[in-house]
């Protein structure tokens, strides 16, 4: 879409600042005030792996149609960082706007004729009105929020209301923030024609919704699932999941009478210990989890193999970040899909869940515990930095008070009294899932858990047949798992011969891309896979389509590889659209990819697209 004379509730603002300067508060403030005005909004933070002084960007997309992904273009740039000024200027779409701090002259060389430049002497305004270096820096950022409020016709009352809530206990801060907003607002009103053709207008499309990040939602899911032991080692971008759990647990799990904590929160010495603690606790009958990222999964792999073979439940949240190795810790990718599915040596395979947004993180967190205990195996919930750390607009989270945890096949004291003898790894029900017991319940329930070769009776073995019997039963369990993992989400009438298949946080961009592609007369079906191992429904969808675009966020087509390895699909039908820059995939990337490919096909006159 090119820049139209007037565009309401449909544009992108990008704010370039330096980290550690309080810009996060200003940006959140802007986004939330738009959200509270009933307008769907998306906010994405591109920040450095650093505490203070490096470039950081925040992208706010206002989308009356409720699209939650990056569009791939920038209409208004707030360029607050001299260091990145040149590239920030380049990023603005033709017809767009550039707001900069005019306290200092702008490099004339970077002038663009197709962009409207608005200079605001932010530093000067703040220096004149505030005391102290730190305050002046912080207020400069709040000040541009005031400027934007005037330019976009934002409801200033909403901003005041949000500030009042944030600083309810700090009146001095509230006053200075209010003043900074007003300074920016008044300056813009006095010097520019407000509002701009790009502006916001009150809507009523955010009722029944919240703005929440996936790490917080997943943590809340853990609290609601009844998790009691949380063990972890700090690693970006998963740390805020554990912080949120601690926060919610402090609020809801402290006994009001005794002051005792109905949970244990253990910061481990490393990821190896973190997952070990999770195994120990689950083995002993407490719901326990950890959160980590790719490097942590690498370290946890040995224990994950033990949990797979010894059949110990575990829940692990992998908030994926850019690899390989340390990679770019504060950027997003879906690059652990293979390492998570097959973590550890030997024939191992793990249950994976792929949430697409924070709302799903909440429900899948609960489901992960049920699956881990039902199937007695690790469950890896595959978030990524985009889902985990960015605020997404989601439907309100709801809870069914009738829910009770599925603890799976556990023999209690009464059941153990009745049986002659307990065998840990016997497939009594022929679904591949044996029965387990907890320590301290009954001497008859005692068994020996080991990662070495064992028989179906739980005893040590080096006998080929006895070993294979257990290994083959584990395959039956995985077949059972296919019926338990969340079903794929399938869209479309099933008549299209071509389709998009995707996973996790690609969903928002894919959905928008499908709409755009449809306006060009091309209709594609869509399947979003939500669980591994892949179910029969996934098989069927793949079989029913002749050409399938696989959209994912890594270089090596890991999702496509998993599909070809783990389903019967003819791999010549699959075409990859791979996005791995570290920024969340945009709808434009998918639209361009699909249409470009189809154009080539049309040239080759294949004609498979309906």
């Amino acid at each position, binding site marked *: 879409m090119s820049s139209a004379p007037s565009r309401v509730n449909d544009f992108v603002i990008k704010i370039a600042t330096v980290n550690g300067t309080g810009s996060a508060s200003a940006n959140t403030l802007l986004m939330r005030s738009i959200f*509270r005005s009933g307008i769907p909004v998306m906010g994405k933070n591109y920040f450095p792996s650093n505490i203070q002084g490096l470039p950081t960007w925040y992208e706010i997309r206002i989308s009356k149609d409720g699209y939650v992904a990056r569009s791939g273009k920038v209409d208004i740039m707030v360029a607050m960082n001299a260091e990145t000024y040149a590239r920030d200027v380049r990023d603005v779409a033709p017809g767009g706007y550039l707001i900069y701090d005019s306290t200092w002259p702008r490099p004339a060389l970077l002038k663009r004729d197709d962009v409207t430049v608005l200079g605001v002497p932010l530093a000067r305004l703040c220096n004149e009105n505030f005391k102290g270096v730190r305050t002046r820096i912080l207020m400069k950022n709040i000040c541009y929020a005031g400027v934007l409020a005037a330019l976009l016709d934002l409801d200033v009352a909403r901003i005041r209301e949000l500030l009042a809530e944030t600083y309810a206990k700090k009146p001095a801060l509230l006053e200075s923030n209010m003043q900074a907003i007003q300074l920016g607002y008044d300056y813009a009103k006095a010097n520019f024609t407000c509002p701009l053709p790009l502006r916001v207008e009150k809507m009523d499309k955010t009722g029944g919704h*919240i*703005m*929440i990040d996936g790490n*917080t939602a997943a943590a809340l899911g853990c*609290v609601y699932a009844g*998790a*009691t*032991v949380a*063990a972890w080692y700090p690693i970006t971008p998963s740390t805020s999941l554990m912080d949120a759990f601690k926060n*919610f647990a402090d*609020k*809801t799990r402290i*006994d009001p009478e005794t*002051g*005792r*904590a*109905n949970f*244990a*929160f*253990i910061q*481990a*010495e490393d990821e*190896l*210990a973190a*997952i*070990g*603690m*999770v*195994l*120990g*606790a*689950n*083995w*002993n*009958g*407490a719901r*326990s989890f950890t959160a980590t990222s790719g490097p942590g999964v690498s370290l946890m792999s*040995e224990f994950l193999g033990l949990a797979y073979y010894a059949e110990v439940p575990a829940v692990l949240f992998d908030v994926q970040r850019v690899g390989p190795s340390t990679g770019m810790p504060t950027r997003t990718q879906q690059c652990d899909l293979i390492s998570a599915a097959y973590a550890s040596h030997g024939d191992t395979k793990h249950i994976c869940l792929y949430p697409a947004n924070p709302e799903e993180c909440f429900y899948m967190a609960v489901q992960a515990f049920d699956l881990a205990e039902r199937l007695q195996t690790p469950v890896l919930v595959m978030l990524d930095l985009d889902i985990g750390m960015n605020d997404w607009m989601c439907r309100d*989270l*709801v809870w*069914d*008070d009738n*829910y009770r*945890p599925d603890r799976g096949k556990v023999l209690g004291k009464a059941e153990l009294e009745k049986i002659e003898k307990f065998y840990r790894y016997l497939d009594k029900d022929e679904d591949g899932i044996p029965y387990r*017991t907890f*320590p*301290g*319940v009954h*001497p008859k*329930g*005692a*068994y*020996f*858990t080991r*990662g070495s070769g064992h*028989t179906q009776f739980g*005893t*040590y073995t080096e*006998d080929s047949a006895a070993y294979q019997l257990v290994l083959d039963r584990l395959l039956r369990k995985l077949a059972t798992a296919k019926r338990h993992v969340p079903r794929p989400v399938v869209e479309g009438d099933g008549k299209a011969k071509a389709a998009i298949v995707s996973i996790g946080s690609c969903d928002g961009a894919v959905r928008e891309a499908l709409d755009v592609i449809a306006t060009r007369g091309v209709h594609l079906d869509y399947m979003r896979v939500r669980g591994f191992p892949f179910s029969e429904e996934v098989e069927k969808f793949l079989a029913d389509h002749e050409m399938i675009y696989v959209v994912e966020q890594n270089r090596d087509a890991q999702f496509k590889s998993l599909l070809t390895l783990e389903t019967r699909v003819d791999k010549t039908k699959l075409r990859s659209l791979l996005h791995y820059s570290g920024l969340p995939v945009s709808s434009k990337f998918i639209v361009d990819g699909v249409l470009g490919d189809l154009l080539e096909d049309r040239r080759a006159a294949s004609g498979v697209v309906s």
Partner: protein
Amino acid sequence: MTFIPKPKIAHPSLPRNELGLTRREYEGALSTLCAGCGHDSITAAIIEACWGISMRPENLVKLSGIGCSSKTTAYFVSGGHGFNSVHGRMPSIAMGANAANRDLYYIGISGDGDSLSIGLGQFCHAIRRNVNMLYIIENNGVYGLTKGQFSASADVGTKAKKGEVNQQPPIDPVLLAMNLGAGFVARSFSGDKAQLVPLIQAGLKYPGFALIDVLSPCVTFNDHDGSTKSYAFTREHYEPVVEADFVPFKKEIATAYAAGEAVPVMLHDGSRVVLRKLAEDYDPTDELHAHDYVQQHIAKGEYLTGLLHCRSTQDTEFHSLNRTPDLPLNQLPFERLNPGSKQLGKLMARYR
């Protein structure tokens, strides 16, 4: 190596403990270790200790890593759950299991390879976290299963079976544990059952991390001349410096101790550990003094044994510090864990 069950036939006249159980009911599978292995003596001491304090078999959780020592958890108390985990990682399993259920007794069996090399980090952090468990290192100075390489506890100058002489200084778990603030630190010898049994009983009952480093000669790879961890060398250089008696709750101290010689340490459940000093200038309740005393003797080539350090204050145990409830976390009813739909509505207000 295969699993060998022991026939469970008990003679009717075998002595029974308070639970009415005989020693046979504290046994496990048949050991597959080499004949004469020190580890088997430790297994026997554990059986004796558990029987002696009338431990409910199902209340004992047996944890281990990888190595000869780690196999032994299968050889005692078959009525207790066992978890033979991965190399050097037993402490983290113990931490998680203990967090889930504070009511059970946790015994971790490890070796010098498992604890002082690959698992040194987890060993240290288990001490730092003060997990309520008894941690036994069956220390023989070599890697047995992989045929005789030196471990990190091998002394300078000790000779391997094939003649190689170790030149790297050892890591001593006793000094390390004292350094890290462990409240219960003991050293013993697999051949001294009389000393070992009460130490195990006291260690099991001690409300916090309890370490017993047990010299346990490897008959196959480290029992030759020139080895500082052979039976002969150990018998010559290991010297009891403090004896510990474990006195269960309600039992009166039967033996009379000379004044100034016996130091009783009260445990939470009312039982006591009574320390009897064999060296007059030694105070096992003072950890700084104990550390220096033990280190000075090692420098002279003397290895002191017994309960070398026992702290009388026991308020830093993991559950105390974390203020978890008395009811184990794995037994809390779901209603107390789940905040409910109403609360969810309130929690979401922040995100609007």
